[in-house]
């Protein structure tokens, strides 16, 4: 079973579990066996921060008993899932890979995890990450860097590096990550897996430890587009505990694999697909009509002169596949996108400086008290509890919000953010259905190779605009350069995840095995 396990998608696992071919405990054991085999601990890939095999097995056994023979155990029945360590979970600690939250166990659970569990998912681990999701390499973890399973000398990307590496290492078919500026898509690209960041408001943030609230979204990582579609569909939708979550209806994303718009009525086939018993393979083999009528924009700002030629070639190959499946490729411009990095590095730290004020040593987490009064306790706790990148961003954010600087930085950055979002709006209003770009300007770099913070920030240059504009985006493997994976990014309009998945399924099917070559 364990050989197959590393290759099966979430839908296939759930389908087998519900058919009684395998049991939930089988799947948990398979996951932990694979984890031992490949090494997810601190001295190997350093993917897992917290896991409890015994507790996970007990949970799986309880589920097995509940299932009996016929009860519907959910679309993710028995699927082992890894969770980024900044999403509050019951049972396992939630520490954001920070010393300041060492040992902290949340008394409540994130809505996304609750929904995962309700669909039958089994949480097996909390994964390594850049401290408080601040970073692009998972090197800013208090527990040391996660290693890229494709090349252990390299970083897995970040900040959801642990979740991306878990998928790449085959320990789980599905994982939750979080995005503020590309933290799911960039590691997905670096690790050769699929990573989706939904529209802002599509998934409840309740239980996601806030970094920059107006940009943060929980995202899904999986082996395939289908994993991501199934995972996102499970956690998407309005939540009264998050005032910024949306009540726009959630379509059945998996149906987008069949091409065309969402079907109006529920045919037996759509119901079968919804519950993971598709009569056809998803996605079906591509034809010249798979993307008929779809207009895909190619923004010139995301294909600069300086772009790595091999990555450009892989993107062109993907665009050729789109054409051969009936899509029209249109050259477009998102002129304000080059301003995204500076705007992001004003707004995100500003919100972070406020969001991280609660880690003050008073109620929970680390307290370092030199016994010299309140201010000294604050200073000692926070300077020892936070790592250098988190400290840098808190200082930066405090500065840009200060009296006398607010208008020049925060307010201006907000205005530019609106312009960046307007660029996307007008492109989609002009008849473009989806935008295609490289996910990252480079492949995974070696651990320790980038020491300049600004150079590190440039990793997010193609991803951060989707966060600023609030639109959905997905990274799909499109090939390899010098053995390292490359991701292609598909961006669509607000709440149009359906079209995004449709194009992503098509790309995956169109590339076939080439996606990993």
């Amino acid at each position, binding site marked *: 079973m364990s050989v197959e396990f590393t290759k099966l998608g979430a839908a296939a696992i759930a389908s087998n579990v519900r058919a009684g071919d395998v049991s939930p405990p089988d799947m948990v054991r398979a996951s932990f066996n694979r984890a031992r085999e490949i090494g997810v601990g601190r001295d190997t890939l350093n993917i897992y921060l917290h896991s409890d095999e015994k507790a996970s097995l007990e949970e799986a056994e309880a589920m097995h008993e509940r299932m009996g023979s016929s009860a519907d155990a959910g679309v993710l029945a028995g699927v082992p899932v890894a969770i980024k360590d900044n*999403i*509050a979970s019951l049972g396992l600690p*939630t520490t*954001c890979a920070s010393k300041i*939250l060492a040992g*902290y166990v*949340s*008394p*409540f659970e*994130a809505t996304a995890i609750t929904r995962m569990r309700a669909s039958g998912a089994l949480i097996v681990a909390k994964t390594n990450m850049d401290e408080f999701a601040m970073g692009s390499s998972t090197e800013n973890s208090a527990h040391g860097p996660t290693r890229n399973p494709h090349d252990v000398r390299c970083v897995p990307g970040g900040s959801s590096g642990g979740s991306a590496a878990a998928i790449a290492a085959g320990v789980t078919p599905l994982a939750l990550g979080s995005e503020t500026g590309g933290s799911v898509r960039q590691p997905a690209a670096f690790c050769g897996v699929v990573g989706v960041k939904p529209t802002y408001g599509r998934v409840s*943030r*309740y*239980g*996601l*430890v*806030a970094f*920059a*609230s*107006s940009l943060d979204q929980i995202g899904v990582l999986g082996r395939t587009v289908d994993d991501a579609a199934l995972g996102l569909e499970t956690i998407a939708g309005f939540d*009264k*505990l*998050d*005032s*910024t979550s949306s009540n726009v209806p959630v379509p059945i994303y998996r149906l987008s694999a069949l091409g065309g718009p969402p079907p109006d009525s529920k045919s037996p086939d759509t119901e079968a697909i919804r519950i993971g018993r598709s009569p056809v393979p998803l996605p079906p083999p591509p034809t010249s009509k798979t993307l008929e009528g779809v207009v895909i924009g190619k923004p010139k700002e995301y294909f600069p002169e300086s772009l790595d030629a091999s990555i450009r070639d892989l993107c062109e190959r993907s665009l050729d596949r789109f054409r051969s499946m009936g899509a029209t490729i249109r050259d477009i411009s998102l002129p304000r996108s080059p301003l995204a990095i500076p705007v992001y590095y004003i707004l995100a730290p*500003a*919100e972070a*400086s*406020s969001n*991280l*004020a*609660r880690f*003050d040593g*008073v*109620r*929970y987490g680390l307290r370092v008290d030199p016994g010299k009064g*309140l201010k000294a306790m*604050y200073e000692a706790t926070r300077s020892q509890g936070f790592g250098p990148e988190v400290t840098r961003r808190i200082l930066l954010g*405090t500065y840009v*919000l*200060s*009296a006398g600087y*607010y208008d020049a930085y*925060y307010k201006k950055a907000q205005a530019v953010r609106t312009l960046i979002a307007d660029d996307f709006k007008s492109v989609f209003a002009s008849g473009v259905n989806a935008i295609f770009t490289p996910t990252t300007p480079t492949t995974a770099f070696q651990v320790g190779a980038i020491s300049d913070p600004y150079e590190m920030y440039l990793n997010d240059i193609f991803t951060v605009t989707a966060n600023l504009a609030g639109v959905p985006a997905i990274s799909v493997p499109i090939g390899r350069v010098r053995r390292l994976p490359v991701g292609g990014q598909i961006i669509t309009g607000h709440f149009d995840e359906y079209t995004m998945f449709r194009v992503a399924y098509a790309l995956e099917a169109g590339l076939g095995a080439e996606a990993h070559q």
Partner: protein
Amino acid sequence: MSRERFEMVVGLEVHVQLKTRTKAFCACSTDFGAPPNVNTCPVCLALPGALPVLNERAVELATRAALGLGCQVNPVSVFARKNYFYPDLPKGYQISQFDQPLATGGFIAIAAKDSGAELKIGITRLHMEEDAGKSIHDRYPGATAIDLNRAGVPLIEIVSEPDIRSSADAGAYLRTLKQILQYLEVSDVSMEEGSLRVDANISVRPQGQSRLGTKTEVKNMNSFSGVERALDAEFERQCALLDSGGKVEQQTLLWDGAREVVRPSRTKEGSHDYRYFPEPDLRPLMLDDKWIGDARKHLPELPDARKKRLGQDFGIAPIEIEQLTAAPALAEYFEAVARASGDGKAAYNWVMGEVLAVLKATGNDLSHFRVRPADLAQLLSLVRDGTVSHTAAKRVFALMVETGKPPAQVAADEGLSQVGDEDAIATWVDEVLVEHPEEAKRYLAGEKKLQGVLVGFVMKKSKGRADPKRVNQLLSTRGG
């Protein structure tokens, strides 16, 4: 004296706790007096990952307050984070409103101290925010305890224009504000329980100068008269400073009510930079015209309207109306008695006399008062139709307060119904004349002024049941 040369300029910031069942951004109870940290949850403890959800009821009450104070309620207002570190502020920021408050531009009319003329004190803004917890410094030696029951309780802050020119006007403003908020039923407005708190900004300037002087902020007053005394003390201090050629320094001062002085606060308020920015966890608050219009339509009757109406309906003099309507509960009680009995004058006398006396003696408020307005009205009717005498009525009333029974039953049980029967009264009169031979002799000899004394004896003997009119008539006949 320097005082006459200077003018006091005061603006008040009043924090009012809204009367909601649950907190502003979570479902925790707002109960006052629960054991420490019982009314808390992940949201108001600021646990990682928790998010605020706005309490709709708090918006309703804040809007009602704004409309009742004549403010313009803004169709879009924005919550903002006010960032500062303090152990009883769990998130490290307070959710408040900053550059786009809920409401702007109202006023409160008071009677000016000197002339009695109507004076309008402008209201700059009214915004919503959440309360912090409590730091308890004196319970555990060497440590500070934190109680977060109050953290997240909804407040409104009402900021006045610097239109106030005397401590007495400040007191009048506060009393009127409190009365209006009571009528609006938005808050318990109790300074003792902390549901109403006042900070004062005060500056002085030479009479006739239009430019404002440097202001100080005075805090820590725990009564309206405390506010008045604090303002007077700070006015004196600033005048003396200016007189001696000094300068007023912008700072925060604390009122020490025991010593009647203001002292500089240890925290340097002026150095705070709160780094306000829009709260990204909450969407802008949008109130449509219809919703605001409905809130306006359903506003409870305000004090001025009620005074006018009660005066007209029941013929009560203006000065009496003021006392009667000071608190809405008393005015409502009065009105119910007056309507049921059809006798406004009698209702006024009873409510302001007997009822208030009982409330004062017991220290209770009307919500714990056992005599229902309908029962008091019935008692008034019994007096009017002669079933119960005035004297007996007071006894009946006392028993009604004790037992909560209706007056007819009390009077019957206690034999306090008035006796108009000639024979019974004649018997009492005869007995009194026998028992008090000296007075009887002098009275019968023509000393008419003794008639009152003898009536008193009869009333006492009858336990107040005898109809005094008949007693007088009978005595006159005997003396005759």
